[in-house]
């Protein structure tokens, strides 16, 4: 199982996953960052295929391809610079963040290199997908079903949170854009001063 070719391909894929993960925070456009993250996930899925986990690998690729497309749409919605024509570097507490990331990597890396994990690989002919199916619908069914109910609750929560109709009237009632400087006058539009679609039923909301 552990022939040098597999190890080499694994090394390349792992390096690619880490490199594309690094590119996520270095490209000038959020859409490119989103696709970079997708490449990182696809590399992890390919590693799953290589490490005899075909179901997990393929599921990762499928799920992340769709998820990153959705993410790219949100990028275009919320980003002032989706095309990446200008340099983009929007960070705060940069030094602390670099230190925290490095500390996490070095700590985990030291734990990996200093400990001796057991070597007990998957048997080459093991029916891993069938085993997963029997596990999901057998001993671990409660966990599986709990995950399903959690996803249902997530759907309900996502719809409620993002609904235009808030709990106490329209969700954007009294919404004020942030100032361009700290404590400055609100920038951009305030609801009510222009009659756009969706603002026809609550004129006179105080700001």
């Amino acid at each position, binding site marked *: 199982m552990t022939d040098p070719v597999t190890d080499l391909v694994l090394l390349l894929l792992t390096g690619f996953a880490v490199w594309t993960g690094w590119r996520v925070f270095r490209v000038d456009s959020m859409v490119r960052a989103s696709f970079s993250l997708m490449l990182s996930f696809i590399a992890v899925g390919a*590693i799953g295929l290589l490490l005899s986990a075909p179901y997990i690998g393929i599921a990762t690729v499928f799920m992340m391809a769709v998820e990153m497309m959705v993410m790219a749409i949100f990028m275009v919605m919320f980003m002032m610079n989706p095309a990446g024509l200008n340099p983009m570097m929007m960070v705060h507490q940069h030094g602390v963040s670099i230190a925290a990331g490095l500390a996490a990597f070095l700590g985990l890396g030291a734990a990996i290199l200093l400990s001796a994990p057991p070597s007990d690989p998957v048997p080459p002919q093991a029916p891993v997908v069938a085993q997963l199916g029997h596990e999901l619908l057998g001993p671990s069914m409660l966990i599986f079903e709990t*995950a399903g109910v959690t996803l249902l609750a997530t759907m309900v929560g996502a719809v409620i949170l993002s609904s235009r109709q808030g709990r106490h009237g329209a969700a954007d009632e009294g919404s004020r854009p942030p100032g361009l400087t700290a404590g400055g006058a609100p920038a951009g539009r305030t609801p009510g001063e222009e009659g756009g679609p969706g603002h026809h039923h609550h004129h006179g909301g105080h700001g």
Partner: protein
Amino acid sequence: MTLTIVLLGAAALIGLGLYGALSQQSFVMLMMGLELMLNGALLATIGFWSRAIGGMPEGQLLAIIVMAVMAVEMAIGFALIVAVYRKRQADMTESLGTLKH
């Protein structure tokens, strides 16, 4: 050797994700950092399952749970971004200061 490579890659992904989640000002980029950390967790889970526990099915189950957590994080995260945008017309963490003193 195989497991060490995979786990070191997972550690690097988790470190990068932590950096992104702490440093990015835009909510969407911040969530990419969280996703990257979960990506590292998924990679480590696959590596351990494949090389260290002899293919116990519970390892694959854990990987599926990590993927479900990713889906939950993404859906609720974007819903919160939309809610914050409706209320404050803001997509940056600096615009939210109401919990400060």
